[in-house]
């Protein structure tokens, strides 16, 4: 009996070590640095200061945070609108087609994301694939400037994040007990009614973990805006990188990252509250 208990603890040790080493320590390091002073040339001095946080609340930086949140929200909404129906119908396919769809969803991940984004450039550029198609079909007359615009960045974000939404919705749709729908239809509910009262409720955890998996990374995905937006949309991620490399202000970059993380946590709490679900498909 005793041995069993000991084994249970022993088995947990690796995950504790992993978490401490790769999650807690780096985070603590970042938080500590965010309270230090920038050194004259490189690195930081061990002098405590709140200056970095004071600077974060400069309206200039707050505005960039706001822009980043806006883009993240817009991407999340679009991804939900496309990803939910996709995941739903995928969950209703026959086993054979489910496997095929899964394969198709996974294949793009075999190529680096950066290369896939450059593929979008070929589609979007002036006189590119899309442009030629539009002109050929007579919809437009002259070459368009589609690339390096806000919509181009949104398309890139949605493209990048969509699989995460599809997969989490799919996994909860697949687990659903469809006899409940039959029962509700037998009892006189319309299709819409049974969708809203049963399917949506039961797939809510999947939908919300999809939202989390979309929203959280989209706060940091600045390189999509760099590549498809021509560096013209300023997101907090690129400001952090610039502070780290060009201004050599590591403490301020750390402070910005801490605030970004806090902001993300606040949003997650908010989602949880709004949805009223206790669980986010294994995330919380």
């Amino acid at each position, binding site marked *: 009996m005793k041995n069993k208990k000991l084994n249970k603890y022993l088995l947990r040790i690796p995950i504790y070590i992993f978490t401490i080493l790769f999650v807690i320590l780096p985070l603590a390091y970042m938080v500590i640095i965010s309270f230090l002073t*920038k050194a004259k*040339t*490189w*690195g930081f001095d061990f002098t405590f200061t709140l200056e970095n946080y004071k600077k974060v609340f400069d309206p*200039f930086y707050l*505005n*960039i945070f706001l*822009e980043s949140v806006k883009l993240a929200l817009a991407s999340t909404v679009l991804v939900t609108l496309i990803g939910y129906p996709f995941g739903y119908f995928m969950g209703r396919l026959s086993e054979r087609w489910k496997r095929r769809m899964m394969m198709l969803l996974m294949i793009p991940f075999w190529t680096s994301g950066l290369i896939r984004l450059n593929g979008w450039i070929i589609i979007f*550029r*002036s*006189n590119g694939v899309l442009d030629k198609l539009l002109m050929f079909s007579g919809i437009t007359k002259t070459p368009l*400037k589609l*690339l*390096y*615009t*806000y919509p181009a960045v949104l398309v890139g974000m949605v493209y990048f994040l969509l699989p995460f939404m599809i997969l989490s919705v799919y996994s909860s749709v697949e687990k659903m007990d469809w006899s409940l729908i039959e029962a509700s239809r037998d009892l006189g509910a319309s299709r819409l009614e049974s969708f809203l009262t049963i399917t949506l409720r039961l797939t809510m955890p999947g939908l919300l973990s999809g939202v989390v998996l979309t929203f959280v990374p989209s706060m940091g995905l600045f390189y999509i805006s760099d590549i498809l*937006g*021509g*560096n*013209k*949309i*300023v997101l907090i991620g690129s*400001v952090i990188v*610039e*502070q780290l*490399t*060009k*201004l*050599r202000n590591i403490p301020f970059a750390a402070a910005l990252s801490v605030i970004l993380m806090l902001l993300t946590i606040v949003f997650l709490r908010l989602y949880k509250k709004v949805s009223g679900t206790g669980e986010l498909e294994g995330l919380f």
Partner: protein
Amino acid sequence: MKSKVLGLLGLGAALALTACGGGSKDASQQSTGAAADSALKGTTLNLYTWDGMFPQEVLDGFTEKTGVKVNYSNFDLDETMLAKLEETKGGDYDIVVADDYIIQLAIKEGLVKELDKSKISTYDNINPLFQSKFYDPENKYTMPYGAGIPLIVYNPETVKVDIQGYNDLWNPELAGNVGIIGNYRVIDGITLKSLGYSFNTNDLTQIQEAGDKLKTLAPNIRLINDNNLQDYLLSGEVGAAFMYTSQVTQAIKANPDLKVVYPKEGLGFGVMGSFIPSNAPNAEAAYKFLEYINEPEVAAKCFEYIGYFVTNKAAESYVSDDWKDLIVFPEDKISLIESGELIENISDEANELHNKLWEEFRQKTN
């Protein structure tokens, strides 16, 4: 210099280096005395710079001539190099090639060895035009290895404006047709210059004034890209671009009809310098290396390879004809270099304001 397009290549090279980098330590048995040539044989020279800064041919030539093996390690960012030198207290490496502004910091921190010029017989080949700059005013520590001068390049077929200088970039006819590099000190700098101020001013009101002017450039900006702007000019995505020297050379190589403009308001440029770290394990070999790469034929090969402006006067006549127009600084434009400025380190406040104005400008371009 500031932007090396060679990230992926660098990774490959780094792997190759780890695979065969075992020999770096035997350099510590360094040679003393004048009979360097025979004593140096079999030692290793540790060269530390960006990826792709020396043609293999030149490195092999050095080994053949002196018997010294070259161990090439690379960094991506100047800052990485400085951190590494701080860590090793100016040891481990024998030759470093890096950007001017970071060399100034390294010298200040005592990480750079004073050069004994009597050991470099080819020293006088250097073009004095690129010497005595802010980072080493008395030329005590460094020798220049190529200059980068960002210039305007445009396609006269699609751009009808006769571009002469920075101010022409503001021409409304260029709406949505201009590409620029993403280096805020350079872009804010040319705006300062277009107002008649210095690239390196610490005067916050001047910087602010330039920032306000820069915002009015936003409607003309099609994209900001630090890595491969030349591709966008070549593909026609932009009609005019302000870009780094290596990009200018690549663009002109691919399309000789493009026009290069040396902005009349004055140039802002950067010099890459080579130096010996203060505790270099094999300093004698380092002197030999500096001597070797300053031989005119060798230097010409190096500059053609990196595609930067030749900083070696004697090498100019050895540069092949296809490269001459691109990397030998034109005689009639020399006054622009003389009146030009290097981009220097400025005060933290000024630097921060620059960055802020730059981000505001970027927001405006969208």
